[in-house]
């Protein structure tokens, strides 16, 4: 039994196609990830990156193919940072309340949060540099601050896998590199598997694998191999020097 679980990959995407109202926007995606991998998903706007993330999160079911989780991975082990906050403008919620909701599925059905949940929230807010604003209204924060809060919420929910959809878009370079090192630390130190959508070459630097999408799978493999392919060279050329 033990041997079997070791041999199985954490995530296995088999011939996955995803569609909106019958229009296929992403077809034939095939890849496998093991625990501890760091996957960077790249591709132009509209190439299906966010759609794939929704498929992986089971917010959207594939029209064909399947996405298999193994190694004891359940959705309650997943942390997620959406591309844009889904919440509406005038929603009354403090930063602390938002991040605390990331702890919900660690509660295993218990209705109320414990002291350790609150402590964890404070730690994660400290990590993203937002602990000073924890009683502040979430909706009154700047876009960049909201992103950091959503990252803290995702970190609070993460046990085995974290999915990040363009986590640094719109952040300034200093905060961007802080975010990247935070994500890398989670990957290296805690062994959390990372799947991140990003155009940024700095992100690719940290990754072990690359998935390049263009409404279908253009490349999947090790990062070191990707940078040697014509596709990878063009991507690096278009996105500035490392």
């Amino acid at each position, binding site marked *: 039994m033990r041997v079997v679980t070791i041999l199985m990959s954490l995530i296995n995407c088999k011939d996955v196609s995803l569609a909106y109202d019958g229009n296929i926007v992403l077809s034939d995606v095939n890849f496998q990830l093991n625990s501890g991998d760091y996957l960077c998903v790249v591709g132009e706007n509209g190439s299906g990156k966010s759609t794939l993330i929704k498929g992986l999160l089971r917010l959207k079911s594939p029209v064909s193919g399947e996405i298999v989780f193994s190694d004891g991975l359940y959705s309650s082990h997943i942390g997620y940072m*959406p591309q844009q906050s889904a*919440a509406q403008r005038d929603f*009354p919620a403090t930063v602390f*309340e938002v991040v605390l*909701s990331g702890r919900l*599925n660690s509660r295993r059905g218990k209705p109320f949060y414990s002291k350790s949940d609150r402590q964890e929230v404070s730690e994660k807010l400290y990590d993203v540099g937002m602990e000073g604003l924890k009683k502040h209204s979430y909706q009154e924060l700047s876009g960049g601050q909201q992103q950091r809060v959503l990252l803290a*919420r995702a970190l609070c929910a993460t046990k085995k896998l974290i999915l990040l959809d363009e986590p640094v878009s719109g952040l300034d370079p200093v905060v961007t590199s802080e975010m990247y090192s935070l994500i890398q630390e989670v990957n290296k130190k805690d062994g959390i598997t990372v799947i991140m959508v990003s155009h940024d070459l700095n992100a690719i630097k940290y990754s072990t694998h690359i998935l390049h999408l263009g409404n279908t799978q253009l490349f999947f493999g090790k990062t070191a191999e990707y940078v040697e392919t014509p596709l990878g060279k063009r991507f690096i050329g278009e996105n500035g020097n490392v």
Partner: protein
Amino acid sequence: MSEFFMYIAELFAAPFFVRALIVGTLVSLCSSLLGVSLVLKRYSMIGTGLSNVSFGCVTVAVALNIAPLYISIPVVVASSFLLLRISDNSKIKGDSAIAMISSGAISIGVMAVYLTSGVTNDVCGYMFGSVFSLTQSDMVFSAALSVVVIIMFVIFYNRIFAVTFDENFARATGTNAGRYNAVIALLTASTIVVGMKMMGTLLISSLIIFPALTSMRLFKSFKIVVVCSGFLSVFCFFIGMALTVIFEAPAGASVVIAHIAFFLIFSAVSALKKIRKRSIEINE
């Protein structure tokens, strides 16, 4: 003056008045707690829709000579699920779905009234509320259901926050969002059925909408908004009752007037706060 106190003392000794106070307090509390989530999910009109359905049920029940609750509870619960589901995943938008169901229910109600005896006291009571005509068994039933709604709300509070704030995140990280939306639908339906008798079809949705909107004028934390809504709602109910007792004003309308007054006060305070904040910023 002493005559007035005698009158008040008599009122508090009268079972119908005490029953009204108990049920009114509990219903005000239920509707305001759920109201926060419904308003934020853009379902504030659901109160109107469901109470119209409930009105239709009552007229049919009266026509068929059945106790209204036996028909209205199952039908309102079913409509509540239907409305929340329709707004979730279909081409009919939430507000049109509510309008369709409302007008359908009202026309069935009007037909039932036309085909039978005409507008009876019962039907009229359900339209405008008849808080002082609750029977002992009405009270026991309403109070029990309200207490269940309040307890369920407290137990599911954190999950209700999660699915209200960001349903996709909640779903993605392992929350059964469908189940908690169903909980919200069920609690809302129960509140409407109980609140109908008190506030009437025409006014019940104000109990859902006003406390939440008023609290959101001033407070930015979900928990504080929920707690403030609860207090405001109960307080406005008491003010409404006082107006009714002192001026013999209609009960339901008095409660709504109190809510409107608080909404205006909170809006004014919020505007003042903004002006002060801006002038401080300018001075700096």
